[in-house]
């Protein structure tokens, strides 16, 4: 199975950088978190989702996106399965959403992978580099959660 981890957000806006920072840390520890399965892991870190991600998603079997969320307690996570968008309209030129990209993976590149999003609760979106203490504290558990989603038999 091929795995793709996409961490996105603005690393200059405090916890909005949770996606990229956590994805980078996961990549550094992938071998210990996923064992042999880490060999087929690709990690992409971006400030925002872009249309060409659809091609990369179509090459994967299981995709996890990780992003900060304002509506969760700092450090808490929420995992959900992404349903490919039925109309897949390109709503915003600067904010392609996971469901649109999942749909495009299928309609343009012939394969819709299993897509999950892990939202990480943020304490602050102020101009700042680095994570807030509560989010930083939660990172080891979040890394295990990502590995758990990737390695689940059936999600």
């Amino acid at each position, binding site marked *: 199975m091929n795995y793709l981890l996409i961490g996105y957000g603005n690393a200059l806006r405090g916890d909005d950088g949770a996606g990229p920072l956590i994805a980078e840390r996961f990549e550094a520890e992938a071998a210990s978190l996923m064992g042999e399965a880490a060999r087929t892991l690709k990690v992409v870190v971006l400030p925002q989702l*872009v*249309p*060409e991600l659809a091609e990369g998603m179509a090459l994967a079997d299981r995709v996890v996106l990780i992003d900060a969320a304002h509506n969760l307690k700092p450090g808490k996570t929420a995992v959900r399965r992404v349903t490919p968008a039925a*109309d897949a*309209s*390109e*709503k*915003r*030129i600067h904010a392609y959403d996971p469901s649109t990209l999942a749909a495009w993976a299928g309609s*343009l590149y012939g394969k819709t992978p299993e897509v999950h999003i892990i939202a990480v609760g943020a304490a602050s979106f102020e101009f700042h580099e680095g994570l807030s203490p509560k989010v930083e504290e939660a990172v080891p558990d979040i890394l295990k959660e990502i590995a758990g989603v990737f390695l689940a038999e059936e999600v």
Partner: protein
Amino acid sequence: MRDIVIDPVTRIEGHAKITIHLDDKGAVEDARLHVTQVRGFEKFCEGRPFYEMPSLMARICGICPISHLLASSKACDALMGVRLPDAGAKLRYVVHLGQMIQSHALSFFHLSAPDLLLGMDAEPAVRNVVGLIQKDPELAKQGIQLRKFGQQIIEWLARERVHPSWIVPGGVNRPLDPEVRERILAGIPEAMKITEGALKLLKSIVGEFAEEVEHFGNFDSLHMGLVEPDGTLNFYDGGMRFRDAKGKIIADHIPPEAYADYIGEAVVPWSYLKMPYYKPQGYPDGLYRVGPLARLNAADKFGTPKADKELKEFRKTYGPVAKSSFLFHYARLIEIVFSLEKLEQLLNAENILDKRVRAEAGVNFNEGVGISEAPRGTLIHHYKVDDDGLITWANLIIATGNNNLAINKSIKQVSQHFVDGDNLKEGALNRVEAVVRAYDPCLSCSTHALGQMPMQLQLVSPAGELLDEMNRMPDV
């Protein structure tokens, strides 16, 4: 007088509103593009050290930050009084070409192709990239691929795709990795195939848009762009040239520090975007255009074989100075061909792998101007510093700003032909927006809805009575 309002304008960068003013008989009397944001970069950078300016100015835009990095760095080069190592200048041009490719690909395939390929009268629900994917999925994929290639060039060279820190005063801060050079060269043939395919497609359908070609900003104007001493188009460096509608060069090889002798800026009460004009002809007669169409008109040649062949064909069809702003779309694709050829030329240059890529110095002059061709047109950064190198004053003439007068005139022309004041027809109003899109304006880096227009139109009587209204809001 009655007004029709389009707010916001869709499938462009930034926020804008268009008002169409009708007379009492319902005919279009005037039309205006209102830019509704103020950014403040020229003021809040005062007091900052000059070497921060490229990084600060890159934040003006998330789509074309490279252009601002280059113009700003060139202004800083002038403050330092340095001559760049040749490899450093070449590498700046290479990353510039990456940006041209990705920006023009975005403009054509994502922003304009839905109108061109699905038709301006198509239903809004399909006149977007989804409709494009359904009609021609291969074209949609190619658009994504081409834009991706341009973005990758930037990322491979500069590490960050958006707001990279690689371009600095004096040059760039790292030489070219040979492996990156090979990677870029390997991607050029596929990118060229995609571009030539898109050009062929556009040429096959442009005849269906005879009415648009006739009425989309089809008027005499000056055209301005950067050229080398022999008249070859250059995106990165060169002197400014102004050519008139008859093909006469009226000002040539203007060095950056003399721009203010030729370009004035007028202020209007109904928009935050100033109106640059050609000073010797005054305001508003000194209207000029910049960007792909204007560059093709201003320059003598591209200096690369495929682009020059396309240019010859273009001029054979539309004359030595093409007038219609609809042809920005065509010119944009030819510029991608040039960018790919120039990329190959630069990457094969003997000294491109040289380790010396940056000149270093402190402040040696208290004033510096940097000019570069952004995807949307000529971009000017002008700084003044004190003896410690702190910014005391800055003036920016943004690429799209140069086109402000032309965009307004184009909107009026389109409105007068396509808008019937008593009937708010979808296709007519889209044509008003489409003429703005032809210029590919970058009003700021803001989100907006594509395809499904979040549009509210109101027809108001002279007495302020609401006569008619159209509302359409996207699903968010």
